[in-house]
């Protein structure tokens, strides 16, 4: 996913700080165009995007419409997976009003916190991030002074401070889970990055703006105990070259083995995640 390095020799490779500056400039420009999370749009906007594009994409977008009806875009700043997850999950809590679910996740958060401390993180480096997320969880539940409606939730998720803090919290949780289960994650990490588990966490999980991968999603889903579905919109056409069904992968933590459709559904296009809304939810959400 990160096509860094390439074939450029050491000499013509720009300095790291130059690359970083360039990177920041691109993202800053991007930020002008889109909020951290956009508005809910019908899936037809996606079809319009590929009108003149690749026929495989076109066919797949059409197929996508069978199971999903809406999309909410996330800003492509390298944190899109986490921002999408944040909004999608909080929206799920807001709609289901499931207090038991919040308590369950909070228990998992408590475990992640312990894991972080055991791994040597100083509490003050992550406690602010943690408490911001717990605040958001609590205010997604109804009947509290701080309770929010969907518009307020959107506003909060567009607030740089809240959004960045929650993203950072997810990055901590993800990193802790990967390091805690280093043996499990190691083969995957070596497969994609040729780094040690520790290095991977330091270089590709914890820093803001580092894109997420299968490894991140697995770890976050397991750590919080929240199932995630990722729908893949790409040019793969199956073994016979004709299959334009849209593949998806469900990340189901062991404690949630009975779940049918995960509460969080994300659309993946190479390098980017957005939020998808399933047809199943269509009726309720339109009420």
């Amino acid at each position, binding site marked *: 996913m990160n096509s860094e390095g390439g074939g450029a020799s050491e000499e013509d490779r720009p300095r790291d700080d130059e690359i970083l500056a360039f990177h920041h400039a691109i993202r800053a420009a991007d930020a002008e165009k889109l909020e951290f999370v956009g508005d809910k749009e019908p899936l037809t906007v996606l079809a319009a995007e590929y009108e003149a594009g690749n026929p495989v994409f076109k066919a797949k977008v059409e197929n996508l419409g069978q199971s999903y009806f809406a999309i909410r875009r996330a800003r492509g700043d390298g944190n899109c997976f986490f921002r999408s997850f944040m909004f999608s999950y909080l929206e799920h809590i807001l709609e289901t009003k499931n207090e038991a679910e919040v308590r369950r996740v909070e228990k998992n958060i408590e475990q992640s916190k312990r894991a972080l401390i055991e791994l040597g993180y100083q509490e*003050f480096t992550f406690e602010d991030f943690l408490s911001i997320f717990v605040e958001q969880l609590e205010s997604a539940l109804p009947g509290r002074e701080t309770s929010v409606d969907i518009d307020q939730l959107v506003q909060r998720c567009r607030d740089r*401070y809240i959004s960045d803090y929650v993203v950072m919290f997810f990055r901590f949780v993800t990193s802790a889970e990967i390091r805690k289960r280093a043996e499990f994650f190691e083969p995957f990490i070596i497969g994609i990055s040729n780094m040690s588990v520790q290095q991977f966490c330091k*270089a590709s999980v914890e820093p*803001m703006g580092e894109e997420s991968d299968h490894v991140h999603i697995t770890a976050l889903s397991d750590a919080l105990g929240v199932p995630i579905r990722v729908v893949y919109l790409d040019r793969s056409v199956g073994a016979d070259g004709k299959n334009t069904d849209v593949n998806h992968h469900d990340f189901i933590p062991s404690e949630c083995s009975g779940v049918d459709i995960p509460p969080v559904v994300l659309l993946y296009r190479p390098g980017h995640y957005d939020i998808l809304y399933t047809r199943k939810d269509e009726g309720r959400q339109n009420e």
Partner: protein
Amino acid sequence: MAEEKYNMRNPAVKRILQEVREMQNNASEDFMSLPLQDNIFEWQFAIRGPQDTEFEGGIYHGRIQLPPEYPFRPPAFMLLTPNGRFQTQTKICLSISQHHPEHWQPSWSVRTALVALIAFLPTKPDGALGSLDYTSEERRALAIKSRAAAPKFGTTERQQLIDEIHEYMLKKAPPVPEMAKEEQVQEDPSEVADPAAPTSVPVSPAVATEAQEEASATGRDREENLVVENVHELRVNANAGPIAVSFSAGFRVRAPAPVQGSAAREQPAAIGVAPPRADASRGLVARLGLNDDFGLTVLAIGLTIAIIALLIKKYLALAPSISGTGLNFCFSVFFCVTSCVQFLEFSSPDFSEVSHEMALPKYIYLWFTVEVLAGPTNQHAEESTLESSAFRTLRNTFYTN
């Protein structure tokens, strides 16, 4: 910290205040860092040069600027103390490696960054921006120099913080003995090359100034570890003959009018400096609570002579022909004083320069010492109190002159 001054909704403020608290609660010997009172986004720090490197013993000050987006954006570090590794007042590039850029991460803190900075000191600059590649000798010299005084920078308030941090670091970072010695050799080889007699009193002005510098740098603090540090320095210098005396001059600066208690604590150090001849005087030094150079030296000489006088007296007392105690005593005192003065004047040319203004107190003092020693031993306790108060008076007279 004035928390009400800041918008606690600003997450950076909350985080920074937490870091301040953490820094204060878990103080390190390797570094110290605190924000300015009126702006917690501006910090001052000092790091200790890492052990077994040419930076060892050095105390390097610098400033930290935290961005409003902290901890999402990295703090900027600048050194203020010349160190030979990083340019001063230039932002330090902590991601030196071209191949594995270490992005700043919110899980880092001022503490981790300072630890990293210490670790970076002995690394090769490899032409990184803001780096310097001085020789080990130059760096070592800068390390030693860095202890003498904190850099001057910024407002009075900032300067005060810098000075506080410097004092704290001096307490935590004892110099390396080898280095201190090397310094001596480099700066004034003749001093060491000429091992003067231990009884010589002269205080070479150059060395004395240096000693005072050292003393004022060490601060006026009388804490336990400071005393240990003094012993440290002094032991080194005791090897260098005349410097031994000059370094006790440092003590005088530190404790101009020692209270009995604190003086007693510093005695081990004082004894450490005393030339071998003074060994016999240890008991008295301890009882008197003496710790200044002049007193010590005179005392050493005086007591040596007093002991001789005592022996003579004993000898005379044994001789039945001259048994009149008064006459006997006067004789011995006179003998002792004159021989002492002669001895002092002969042994040290410099001494005669100062001996005129000091003549009276010196005579009285010698007399007093001899009388006490010659007196019956059962009056010991009373006499020692008497003597120490008398000595204080004497010394005051001397210093006010």
